[in-house]
């Protein structure tokens, strides 16, 4: 007979085996830094890449390299097929209704800029409002700010509480007949908060307001279902989900994308061009001007295969354990204060220490081979909200281990030694 303790122990052993199997696929994790094993805890900035992603990109350049959507020759057809195959993988990953709704971009930042520019030009005018939240990344603030400056609309900000959760009543109060669009993070990069986006979207929809979800930090940790969320837009970056830099996605509901003017002009996004008039291409190509990052797109396809091939039960259990272990261990260290204590968190622990600046902590941890991010994490308004200039942020991925969290804790003891 198995007691419940046995079950936990067994699960732990199984999880450990699972983690080592995952680690094997990431060559960089074998690196040494300052003569120490690399402990990479800066995954919210960018994740490492598995062998399969590196191989896919290498294979493209060695065997398929050519421009897509234009040649009739063999290579171009093969490359187009590979690249467009990624669109279908993305559709399936997000559970979108059609590949017409999958626009490829350079990343979350470009996805949001695309919407702020194109949707903004068509639907936002003087006196209107754009609503965001107080925990947004600069890339989900500045494009809207620029739009407001251009049009004379106002940028409204839904506040967060001390734990780092959106105050839903305040958010609801800010939704009104002047609100043209809402932009909100699925998961906060500075605090780790998982927002109740489905509920927040439905509240906006009561006023028929479309919602853009910044999914940059959610995509590597959560299963995403855009049809279930019912958001109008969802933005993500390949490089935060084990894929290459310079590639990302904008999901948009087909009817909304159709009502929007093109973003950039150029090749690929047109059906026909004369000096008098240009007829634009169909979705999603209308929003994809110029030769895209083909190798990166194909690498992203391999990252999606990697992600969808994972045992998601193991992923959530493992990531939950890591977050819990880090939270527990850091809370026990005197002088350490965790910033962001939302009930629902994913992958991120931000903290400050009495009398030691995050930048100094970062340097000392680096000497121990531990990579963390220190600074404002492109979320200066969040830092202002907590009255701090910066935090240390440890952020986790599937390949991190409890031993690495122990290394972080030892690293913080070093900090204390240096700063006695």
């Amino acid at each position, binding site marked *: 007979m198995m007691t419940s303790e046995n079950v936990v122990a067994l699960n732990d052993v199984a999880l450990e085996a699972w983690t080592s199997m995952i680690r094997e696929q990431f060559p960089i994790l074998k690196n040494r830094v300052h003569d120490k094993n690399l402990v990479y805890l800066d995954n919210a900035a960018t994740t490492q890449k598995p062998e399969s992603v590196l191989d896919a990109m290498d294979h493209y350049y060695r065997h398929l390299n050519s421009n897509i959507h234009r040649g009739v020759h063999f290579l171009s057809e093969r490359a187009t097929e590979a690249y467009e195959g990624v669109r279908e993988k993305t559709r399936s990953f997000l559970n979108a209704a059609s590949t017409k709704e999958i626009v490829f971009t350079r990343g979350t930042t470009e996805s949001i800029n695309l919407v702020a520019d194109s949707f903004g030009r068509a639907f936002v005018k003087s006196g209107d409002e754009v609503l965001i939240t107080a925990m947004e990344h600069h890339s989900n603030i500045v494009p809207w700010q620029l739009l407001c400056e251009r049009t004379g609309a106002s940028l409204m900000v839904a506040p967060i509480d001390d734990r780092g959760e959106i105050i839903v009543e305040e958010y609801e109060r800010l939704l009104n007949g002047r609100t043209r669009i809402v932009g909100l993070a699925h998961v906060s990069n500075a605090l780790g908060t998982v927002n109740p986006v489905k509920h927040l979207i439905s509240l906006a929809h009561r006023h028929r307001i479309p919602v853009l979800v910044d999914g940059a930090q959610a995509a590597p940790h959560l299963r995403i279902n855009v049809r279930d969320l019912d958001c109008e837009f969802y933005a993500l970056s390949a490089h935060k989900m084990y894929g290459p830099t310079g590639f990302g996605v904008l999901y948009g509901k087909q009817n909304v994308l159709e009502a929007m003017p093109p973003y950039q002009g150029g090749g690929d996004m047109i059906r026909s061009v004369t000096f008098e008039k240009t007829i634009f291409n169909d979705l999603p190509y209308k929003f994809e001007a110029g030769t895209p990052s083909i190798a990166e797109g194909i690498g992203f396809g391999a990252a999606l295969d990697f992600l969808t091939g994972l045992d998601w039960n193991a992923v959530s259990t493992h990531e939950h354990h890591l977050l819990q272990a880090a939270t527990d261990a850091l809370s026990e260290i005197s002088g350490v204060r965790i910033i962001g204590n939302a009930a629902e968190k994913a992958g991120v622990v931000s903290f400050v220490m009495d009398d030691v600046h995050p930048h100094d902590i970062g340097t000392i941890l680096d*000497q121990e081979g531990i990579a963390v991010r220190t600074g404002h994490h492109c979320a200066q308004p969040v830092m202002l909200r907590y009255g701090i200039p910066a935090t240390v942020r440890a952020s986790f991925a599937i390949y991190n281990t409890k031993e690495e969290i122990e290394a972080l804790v030892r690293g913080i003891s070093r900090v204390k030694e240096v700063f006695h």
Partner: protein
Amino acid sequence: MSDLRSLYQEIILEHNKNPRNFRKMPEASRILEGYNPLCGDHYTLYLKIIDDTIADISFEGSGCAISKASASVMTTLLKGKTKTEAEKIFETFHSLVTGELKDVSFETLGKLGAFGGVSEFPARVKCASLAWHTMHNALDAKTDLVSTE
């Protein structure tokens, strides 16, 4: 460890804990802010210049140990110096933290020598230089916010 000790020398840790001339100066003739957006280091530097001489110098603000100690040490070194002397010390400091000052024993540099380890930590050179750049610009009577980015 040896590397860390060369960065966080006792003088630096001590000045970080007890910064000198850490106060507002209402009668200052020049007030300038220095800001490093990357890490949020933010200081205000106060200078009282009388007849080309730094009659008084102080600072306020917050930031990492390296930037704060550097500002503190700077104020102790520059009080009473002429503008020309101050610029000379700035040059020495600059070449020290960027690793251009070779074959000098750090002892001959006095308190400045404590910043010799910074050159091994390229990411921290900006921290060490922030207050100095602010001072340099203040002497030039530039009135803008100084940013090292």
